[in-house]
């Protein structure tokens, strides 16, 4: 489910003109998904999301293939290790983690590109794009959590709740 959402999210980022046409930058949804995966799923899912999410993103982009894997893993792995200490159900925690992840992933990707001798388009305007990406990621993270909660409720297995009423324990009231 997380991987399918990542696949569609990457495609949507490449197809949809907003918010790029309005704010001058496209918001990346993979860091928000990574925060959800790190807090609620297994380490295998986190790893697969980093690998396949990164590959899908790089496929539709001019990035060298594989450059987005390490930044996503750098965000997901520490959050997964520390998730027992994070109040994952609080929207505030989700927003803060989403903002941090959405700021860190593009910064690390650009750093890797520059280290590899590539020439990404960066300048003072990139600062604004970075803020938009962090803010967009911060807003997207609680939405991602809400979406998966809704999916769990709609599609997931619900255990049957046993009623407390039992025939053999019925209290019979009689007139004496």
């Amino acid at each position, binding site marked *: 489910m997380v991987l399918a959402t990542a696949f569609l999210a990457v495609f949507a980022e490449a197809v949809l003109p907003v918010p790029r046409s309005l704010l001058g930058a496209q918001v990346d949804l993979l860091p928000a998904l990574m925060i959800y995966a790190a807090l609620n799923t297994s380490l295998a899912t986190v790893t697969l999301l980093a690998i396949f999410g990164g590959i899908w993103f790089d496929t*539709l*982009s001019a990035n060298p293939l594989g450059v987005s894997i390490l930044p996503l893993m750098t965000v997901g792995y520490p959050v997964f290790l520390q998730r027992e200490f994070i109040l994952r159900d609080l929207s505030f925690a989700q927003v803060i983690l989403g903002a941090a992840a959405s700021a860190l992933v593009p910064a690390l990707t650009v750093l890797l590109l520059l280290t590899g001798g590539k020439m990404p388009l960066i*300048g003072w305007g990139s600062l604004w794009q970075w803020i938009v990406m962090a803010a967009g990621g911060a807003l997207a993270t609680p939405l991602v959590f809400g979406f998966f909660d809704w999916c769990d409720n709609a599609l997931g297995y619900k255990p049957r709740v046993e009623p407390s009423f039992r025939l053999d324990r019925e209290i019979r009231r009689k007139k004496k």
Partner: protein
Amino acid sequence: MFKRNNYLALGAAVFVAVVLLSLPTSATSRLKLAFGSLFLPLFGLATATQQLPTDLAGSVLPRRELLRQIDNLRRENQQLKIQQSQSIAIARENDYLRSHFGWPQQTAWQLKLANVVLRDPANWWRTVQIDLGSRDGLRENLPVMTTDGLVGRVASVGLTRSQVILLGDRNCRVSARVENPGNDIGVLSAGGPLDNSLVELTYLASGANLKPGQNVVTSGQGGIFPKGIRIGQIVDAQPVEFGLYTEARVKLSANLGNLEQVWVVMNPQFP
């Protein structure tokens, strides 16, 4: 805290990333094509979704408006036919004079219309993907333009899709000529990350007589872009590197932020 599984997961991600990054370019482009084919079913869906508002608008357009548009198109078509016949006569005259002076003959551009299907999801590249590929005869470095002006060049070609690097990306440099008395030549390089309508024209001569509004066209040098394609207009200019050369800002004629259809020049010719 650190279990064996944790190390395995981390190692797997690092291993895949390192392997992919160390592959040669030809292998990574083939892998990109393979992974890109996974998105093929979604392309049709996206195109249909994008087409929906146009179809809806078309279905509710009044008949009178449609007739008026048809009338306008007919009139425009007639004007273009007259202009075409005039152009053919001029081209014949040009061919005759070229043969007279022993210059090589020019042939008309063969153009192919392509739809822009994807934009780069990363903010630090300026590329788009079009729905033409190697099966349509596309190859790397073909110029791409709109009726307004130059857009960029084909960077990589798949079977059904190709990636186009737009003007303003650091990987798309164009030799450009300013239409002024000095015919100054410079190199069109990167633009700013936010405003994709402005790009820099660098390495112009230090004494270049540049004025706002002067047209900038391709110079034909460099072996990729044919001569005379409109690029844009000079906005302002300033000397840089202690007056060693001049740098100008150029406002692009083509609207790169709202590309829907582009033309690929299939047979670019150079002087």
